[in-house]
């Protein structure tokens, strides 16, 4: 059973993560091009600001500054500046939790690099040793930060009446799940795998296609929890890290002009052929969006009584 959970189960979890993420992202990307719904300021416009501030703005070339946009994104991704501005108490826990997650990703990358190197060369290669040491140093930081952040956020949601009122069961489940994952990870590091060599070695066995048995109950438990987390991630709100791309780049910052004959216009034209089934009296039954609009156009075209 232990072999199954730390071997085939982890393969399945990784596959679910990859396929689930792809399905979710493709589903969002394939939704019809929506109408403009941006919010200013748009970082990429820099100090020039909105084009609508100029007469004959359509004659102006598109303005796009990479640096302010990158600076904004870095501030959000790494420092959570909006949360800092809006809810300092929550920001603190969120920063800790995300630090744990980011360091956890770094830990995984180091373990993977060490595993690949160990597969390509000898086990005692100095680079592998260095990677192991780095991983061993990062692991407790990642686990402690993630654990502290998740516990802090659970406590905050219990203490703060407003947060408690708006939190549903899933909110608490996600945070407790993360706290458990990081807590068990911390225990695994301290009780089973201080040098992180076992984790790297097991990852190498997984990459080789011959999963080994994991020694140490805590390490095995951490791996199983990680597998569950990976499989759950694409279907949970925690997938907001990917959704955030769409929120910002496809909605809040989307000020792309529609050019005649463009792909966007073809997409809108296709959407206008959808037949809405809304039931209100003022919606024409069976008519497409284009027909809904053109019917009123005809009415508007009637001779003026002036």
């Amino acid at each position, binding site marked *: 059973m232990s072999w199954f959970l730390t071997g085939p189960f982890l393969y399945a979890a990784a596959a679910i993560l990859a396929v689930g993420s792809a399905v979710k992202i493709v589903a969002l990307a394939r*939704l*019809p*091009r*929506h*109408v*403009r*719904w941006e*919010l*200013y*300021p*748009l970082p990429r*416009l820099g100090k020039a*600001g*909105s084009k*609508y*501030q100029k*007469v004959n703005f359509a004659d102006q070339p598109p303005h796009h500054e990479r640096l302010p946009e990158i600076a904004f994104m870095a501030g959000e991704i790494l420092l959570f500046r*909006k*949360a800092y501005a*809006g*809810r300092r108490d929550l920001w603190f826990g969120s920063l800790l939790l995300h630090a744990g997650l980011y360091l956890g990703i770094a830990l995984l990358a180091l373990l993977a690099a060490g595993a690949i190197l160990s597969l390509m060369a000898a086990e005692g290669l100095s680079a592998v040793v260095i990677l192991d040491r780095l991983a061993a140093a990062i692991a407790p930081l990642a686990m402690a930060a993630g654990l502290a952040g998740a516990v802090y956020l659970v406590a905050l949601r219990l203490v703060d009446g*407003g947060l408690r*009122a*708006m*939190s*549903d*069961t899933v*909110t608490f489940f996600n945070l407790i799940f993360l706290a458990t994952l990081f807590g068990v990870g911390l225990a695994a590091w301290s009780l089973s795998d201080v040098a992180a060599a076992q984790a790297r070695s097991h990852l190498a066995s997984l990459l080789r296609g011959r999963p080994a048995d994991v020694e140490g109950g805590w390490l095995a438990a951490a791996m199983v929890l990680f597998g569950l987390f990976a499989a759950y991630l694409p279907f949970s709100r925690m997938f*907001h890290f990917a*959704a*955030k791309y*769409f929120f910002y780049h*496809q909605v809040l910052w989307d000020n792309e002009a*529609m*050019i*005649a004959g463009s792909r*966007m216009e*073809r997409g*809108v*034209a296709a959407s*206008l052929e*959808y*037949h*809405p*089934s*809304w*039931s*209100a*009296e*003022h*919606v024409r039954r069976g008519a497409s*969006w284009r027909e*809904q*609009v053109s019917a*009123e*156009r005809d009415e*508007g075209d*009637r001779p*003026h009584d*002036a």
Partner: protein
Amino acid sequence: MTRKVPIRDFGSELPILSPLDEGELAELPCGCCSPPGTPPRPGWLEKYDFSLDGFSALGLPLPRSKEEEETIVACFLRGLEKLFTPENNWAFLLPTVLSTDYCLRCNTCNASCMIYESSGRQDVYRANFRSELLRRIYKRYFTAAGRLMGRWAGADLELDWRVVYRLAELAYRCTLCRRCAAACPIGVDNALLARELRKLFSLEMGLAPEAVHRSGTVPHLAGGAATGMTPAGFLDTLAFIEELIEEKTGRRIKIPVDKQGAEILLVHNSGEYLSWPENPAAFAILFEAAGVDWTLSSASCGYEAVNYGVWYDDVQLARIVAAQLGEARKLGVKKIVVGECGHATKATVTIAERLLAGGSTIRRESCLPLLAKIAAEGRVRFDPARNDFPVTLHDPCNLVRLMGIVEPQRAVLQRVLPPGRFREMPRAGTKNYCCGGGSGFAVMDNLNFPEWRNCVASRTKARQVLDAFADCLDPSIPKYYCAPCSNCKAAARDGLLEHYGFKQRYNITYGGLAELMVNALPDLPRPYLSWESEF
């Protein structure tokens, strides 16, 4: 004392779930207070639903039988399902799906919401409260996890007619200012979800505020303007405005109408002609003086800038856009310039673009950059000394936060005001607060809704204005609240002046930007702004 309302109790049988207590409202500075509200009349209570907070924006008739109650729930669920299909909601589907699925319930949005803050932080007015109701209902009825696991999957709200009716009313306790979306670390747009709920109620259940639909977009499309102004009435009004211009300036100006091939088709909110004719008159004076090649349209829908559809109904929104652009094309103008009306500018200049394939062939712009150009280029001379009184500027949400038009109006004020007379409001620019009349509130006059609007929605703006004029509140000093948007002016008239008594107490009046420009023309026989008679 804030009123706690757990989400799962939203369908509670309480006659009024969260009654508004004026003692709990956020305090205003300088001892300013609002008159006490009056409870719903007994006759109303027997007919209409007031069960959310004791107010009614929609005038929803109470169901009279079990069957009617069940029909309400069934219609709502049918509409909710449609809201998440491309056939019915392609125009807003991605933002709707994102904001439904990825909220982390961090409440960061709440502090940015003026309704929540003004109300004394009542639970039902949280920026994310109605969205959370929507999410839990959707999860409960349309996801496998919700159906199988109920509250364990975050789907703990059972639906009945009270929930539906209260949710319909709650969709009209948000001005769609989108400060919440700007504050959200993820980008979740609770205001959009309020709008989507309005859309569901309108397009599926035929429920929308009387002033916005039956007396708004319907007469707009049928007769030419949301105010009911017909083309003949419009031409009569123009004759009156020409007389007004002559009376005020001594100049006889012939306002160009239906001029084929003009550079600019100027479209105003038709409410301007009726309530603030000195605003379209000011545009005519400025354009004449600046030598602008412009025209108005007398065609049905050609002289009306508003598009109430943007607040509640995509079908009406698209129909009005098509009618407006169609009239502009018929005139062969180079571009449409939208007058001082925020939502109309947003709808016409940006949203219209992707609603009609091929509809973007006519250029569309806000009037503010053009006014700034007129102020800057020197062809028209201005004497700032004629505007020697304190002025503060309101940033209409649609123009500023939703379109990024921040600088032109300030550039104008720099040119037409003496140094030191302009003062920004606290949190000016893209962080500004709504006037309280946004998303249709300014025109919605159903039952006792205006009392709620004035007490709660306009409250934050009242505070901002008082803060901006804190050093000169003495009523001997006339002060000008410049609101370059028709709906914002209506909210100022009904909220700030009538409800809070700003004119009597502090000698604060309001008006548009073009009027201030004309008031600074050096060769006028007397001031264009008539402080006592017109405001």
